[in-house]
């Protein structure tokens, strides 16, 4: 098994899919010769040709709209949106079209495409290169929303997303692109969508998180252990459809829950986890569910390290919940 960064694992995943399935196409802005601004698609054009990996005009609406048409007509497009912050011209195509096509045509037409896009902060990208827009997509029936946090999962979830018959928004935590490394099997394998991953066992508090918040939370859990609090870390991996039963099982077993995400708090994904627990297993809870999130402000540049939840904030929440 090779040790790869998360970015290399994604490149490996794309490469594996293109090798195994001639209908898989990779396209977007600068993904061809340059290999993408983060190099996620490096050398794919060289190795598979310009019919399989190509640059498009600079239009997210065009990229996603044409991807839908290609998916309808038998191809498997994996479109890259350079930054999730720039996806909004294509939002109509995602929400009104890709997500609803199967439903509104009674299954006559479908759009099995994958939209890969780097999201989240931590690269000093300011307002427009740092946002976490997962809640917009999670509020849209018909979409699947996937967020890896390890190289192994990045490749396995990407291959599962490409094989999936429904449209998938694949959010890549860009802060982890080069900062995490891990063992990645060669060739094809999948990590099943809508399954959770227990990233760290623990008995007293369950911390739900995803994407770039997973290593932050793991660090906080280590620190909590030093103060005698045994925290479990659960990587949600697929936000929609969520493994609700899995979430509730973890919540019941510790009776204490923290949710961590970078996105703003109000109507954020943490609200859904919190509401699920309140509706279905409040009788098991020993403490209120606490959310550690970005603030309800636009994403700042210079002070981003204050905006982003860090191990101090997560530790604070773990201790509050543990000692409630």
């Amino acid at each position, binding site marked *: 098994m090779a040790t790869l960064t998360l970015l290399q694992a994604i490149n490996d995943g794309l490469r594996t899919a293109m090798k195994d399935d001639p209908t898989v*196409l990779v396209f977007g802005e600068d993904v061809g010769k340059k290999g993408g601004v983060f190099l996620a698609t490096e050398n794919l054009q060289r190795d598979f040709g310009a*019919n399989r990996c190509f640059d*498009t*005009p600079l*239009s997210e*609406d*065009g990229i*996603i*709209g*044409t*991807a*839908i*048409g*290609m*998916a*309808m*007509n*038998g*191809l498997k*497009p994996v479109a890259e949106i350079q930054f999730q912050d720039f996806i909004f*011209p294509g939002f*109509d*195509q995602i929400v*009104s*079209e890709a997500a*609803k*096509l*199967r*439903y*509104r*045509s*009674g*299954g*006559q*037409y*479908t759009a099995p495409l994958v939209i890969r896009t780097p999201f989240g902060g931590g690269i000093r990208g300011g307002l427009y290169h740092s946002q976490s827009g997962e809640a917009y997509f999670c509020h849209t*029936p*018909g979409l*699947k929303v996937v967020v890896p946090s390890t190289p192994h999962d990045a490749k396995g979830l990407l291959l599962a997303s490409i094989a999936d*018959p*429904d449209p998938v928004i694949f959010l890549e935590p860009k802060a982890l692109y080069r900062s995490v490394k891990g063992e990645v099997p060669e060739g094809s394998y999948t990590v099943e969508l*809508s399954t959770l991953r227990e990233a760290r066992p623990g008995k007293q508090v369950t911390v739900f998180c995803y994407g770039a918040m997973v290593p932050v939370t793991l660090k906080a859990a280590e620190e909590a252990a030093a103060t005698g609090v045994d925290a479990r870390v659960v990587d949600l991996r697929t936000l929609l*459809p*969520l*493994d*609700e*039963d899995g979430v509730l099982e973890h919540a019941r077993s510790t009776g204490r829950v923290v949710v961590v995400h970078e996105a703003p708090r109000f109507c954020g994904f943490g609200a859904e986890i919190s509401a699920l627990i309140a509706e279905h297993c409040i009788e098991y809870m020993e403490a209120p569910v606490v959310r550690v999130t970005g603030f309800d402000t636009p994403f700042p540049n210079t002070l981003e390290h204050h905006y982003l939840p860090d191990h101090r904030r997560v530790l604070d929440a773990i201790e509050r919940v543990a000692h409630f």
Partner: protein
Amino acid sequence: MTTTEPLRVIQADGGVNGYDPGLSEPELVHCYRTMLLVRAFDAICLKLQRAGRIGFSIPNEGIEATQVGAASALRKSDWIFPSYRDFGMALYHGVPPLEMMHNMFGDARDGAKGRQMPVHFSFAEPIRFVSISSPIGTHIPQAVGAAHAARLREEDTVVLASFGEGGTSSLGFHSGLNFAGVWKAPVVFLCQNNGWAISCPAEEQTASDGFAIKAEAYGMPGVVVDGNDLLAVRKVTLAAVERARAGDGPTLIESKTFRMGGHSTSDDPKRYVPAEQVELWKKRDPIPRFEKFLEASGLIDAAKTAALRKEVEEEVAVAARAAEQVGPPGLETIFSDVYATIPAHLRKQGEELFDLGRRRGDAHAGDGKFPL
């Protein structure tokens, strides 16, 4: 590369100056019958809507020749990405009126399982008439994607994307035509300039000299055609389709026509369309015009015309009666087709709804009146 004067084929006396449309006699009569069928379907839907038996309809009167002329240029293996005022294209290719009526009533046999408003048809056979969506212009880049896919798969499929002149103001129009130009995609863009986008006249959509001229900026030919002349529409569409099939790229067609009715049954065009404009276009009705050509060619006479009219009126009446008997789709269709497989959370939500019905009775349907 771009034309500004509308191409015409059928002359005032029904003559065509030797133009050969390349259609057999039965095919020409089929074109005529399809236009009659569109008008009959419209007429009965208007009655059904006014009687409160369906909620909504979209009239097509005046634009039948554009729909049928364009559709006649396509093969069954081609794709249509329609606007909501294009169902004559599906009828031409053999979708039965009954299939459409199931959609008008949103009944259990509707291909879209009653999930969409009336007139938002979706057919996969006998031609791909892609599910209509209400947002304007979103289907244009999709058509380009489907066309590009055909090319990558080395199939000679051509895709027709149809929209109104109002649609040229949308994001999808720009990105669609731009991508198609860059990729030389085998797609034909049919802009039906019917004069009005709901209540806004065509000249409020653009400062360009018409709509075909926009093609130049995207690196493709732009052609203007008399949209009420079925053979002229067929001629320009056929040329564009052949060009696309040969790998020479896309074409933008501006079909100049007129929407004789309102935008929909929820709209009263008398509030904004000048009466003299309606009078003028009444004289340009595409059906008598094509009739004249068929008469001049000896293909129909008054008796045949009357018989065809009666036939299509009966066909749509029978279809309406049959669809009205079917009843609504099952409750489970709320939850199916969101995903290929129903996920756990939707199963649970379905069970909650079914359980509520068992305990507290069913929900009451609204009165079906579209609130506009």
